[in-house]
């Protein structure tokens, strides 16, 4: 009987040891002297700011590098003005078109479709509806840029994901797609 008890005890110890492997907790570290940063890290907690986190909104009026002022307001009038008078500062060439295509595939094609016909994967799965065919809308390079910047109807603003220059590259590619779709 004693042997039996020993076996049971051994099993219990083994189980306790294995149950320590918790996937929801990070592994323990050995002398993590230089592991944790002294300064604050991206997205980390920090006492340096009032709300305790590193991610802060820019101070009002901050202008970041490569910032290009955009004076058209996010109103129907602003849209009309951009459509009629805003022009791309970019040269129309293959390099910009290629960059625009890569960015379009990432940021637009999921709804607007690879051809810009409004039949992206999300539309096909009926997750996101009402995406127009580019050729059925009277859009110009100014209005395309305006809509990427501010969004329109159910489309959100993509200004936080694409820089001003990148938005112009996408605009150039959208114009090409629209021309290809035209009957």
């Amino acid at each position: 009987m004693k042997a039996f008890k020993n076996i049971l005890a051994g099993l219990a110890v083994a189980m306790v040891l294995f149950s320590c492997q918790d996937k929801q907790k990070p592994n323990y570290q050995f002398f993590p002297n230089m592991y944790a940063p002294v300064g604050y890290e991206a997205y980390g907690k920090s006492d340096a700011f009032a709300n305790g986190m590193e991610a802060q909104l820019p101070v009002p009026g901050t202008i970041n590098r490569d910032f290009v002022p955009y004076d058209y307001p996010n109103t129907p009038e602003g849209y009309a003005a951009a459509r009629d008078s805003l022009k791309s500062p970019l040269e129309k060439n293959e390099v910009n078109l290629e960059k625009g295509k890569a960015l379009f595939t990432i940021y637009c094609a999921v709804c607007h479709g690879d051809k810009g016909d409004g039949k992206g994967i999300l539309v096909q799965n009926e997750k996101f509806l009402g995406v127009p065919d580019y050729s059925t809308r009277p859009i110009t390079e100014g209005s395309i840029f305006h809509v990427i910047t501010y969004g329109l109807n159910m489309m959100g603003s993509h200004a936080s994901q694409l820089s001003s220059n990148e938005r112009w590259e996408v605009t150039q590619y959208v114009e090409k797609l629209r021309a290809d779709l035209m009957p």
Partner: protein
Amino acid sequence: MKNVILRSSFLYMLLAVLMVTLVFSQIASAQEGDPVAGKQLFNSNCAACHRVNQKLVGPALAGVTQRRTKEWLQKWIRNSSDLINSGDAQAKAIFEEFNKVPMTPFPLLSDADIDNILAYVEAPPPAPVVDTSVASTTAAPAEGSQNINQIVLAALVIVLLLLTVMLVLVRQILSKIAKANGIEITPTGRKPIWKAFAENQFLVLVTVVFLLLSSAYFAYGYLMQVGVDQGYQPIQPIHYSHKIHAGANQIDCNYCHSSARVSKTSGIPSLNVCMNCHKSIAEYKGETTAEYSKAFYDGEIQKLYKAVGWDPEVQQYSGETQPVEWVRIHNLPDFVYFNHAQHVTVGGVACQTCHGPVQEMEIMSQFSPLTMGWCINCHRQTEVKMDNNLYYEKIHEALSKKYGLEKPTVAEMGGLECAKCHY
């Protein structure tokens, strides 16, 4: 003269007949507008701003044919601004109610198209088919086979243990019976096996060496995983399924993690990026399982709305935001420099190379060990993409010549230099 009158009256009659047929055909088409064709038109033209039963950018459309006349609706759909400017009271009221956002004019829609759309809007939308049983059974096999394997293994272990215990017990009982019957078990002339083993020095030596080596092996394995978080899978404050977003919906990783292209960190998407889609997607309509039900997913979307301060009822932001405390999974020690842009944009490395099959992960976990050996290994094996890179053409040529290789690896470009990552 008479002839003329006759002809003209004949013409009038013909016109009248034509008018009547036209009117009738219009009424007929109004009654028989095709909801199926209407759905297609609605989805491609109207759904950007309208839902049938929900207020979005524009009003909910259910029952609109009772609220407005058909002529009014046709005018409004073709060009709402004209109707507003003509001084129509209803048109003005609705324009004011929805913050003076003009509706996109659709001059190209025919009467039949508009009838179809209205037929779809008025037809009760079909109830969503909830088929959790099918979904759960289709999802089960992959996990099921793994579970069955584990169960079989566990059963085998238990059976073996029971057999050993039974053997010991049987032996005890037999010796007791023998004692009770007065039979003395006389030891045979042979030595016990352990004694024979202990006296054989060679065997002892081999066993000791084997035990030492195997314990060293396990001790090494144990020590090497200290500080390695492979498989780390924390619970996040909002259950975000990469399987749904990157898998089923095929959204590019860079859509949300947009700073991976251009910066050191891959970027935790700020909630405005979520709202680019979730402004209009308030409920989950995809595959569900018993564990992850529709109610569960819908609840998680509500958590997002709460954090970002979005009120889906009035379709407006309240301004009360609550930061989400995401738990960081991939974390390199501070003494290592790693730059996402360098790998994603310059190297063209797919996200999955390091992060694994993220598009299949319901709960995100760390796929790679993120140890130095793992980094070095990849640097040794990965060839540098040199095609069409005119800027570095000369240095690439010189490197190829130096190493006598068609395509140098990252290591030969200096990817093993200590100071590349440690400084």
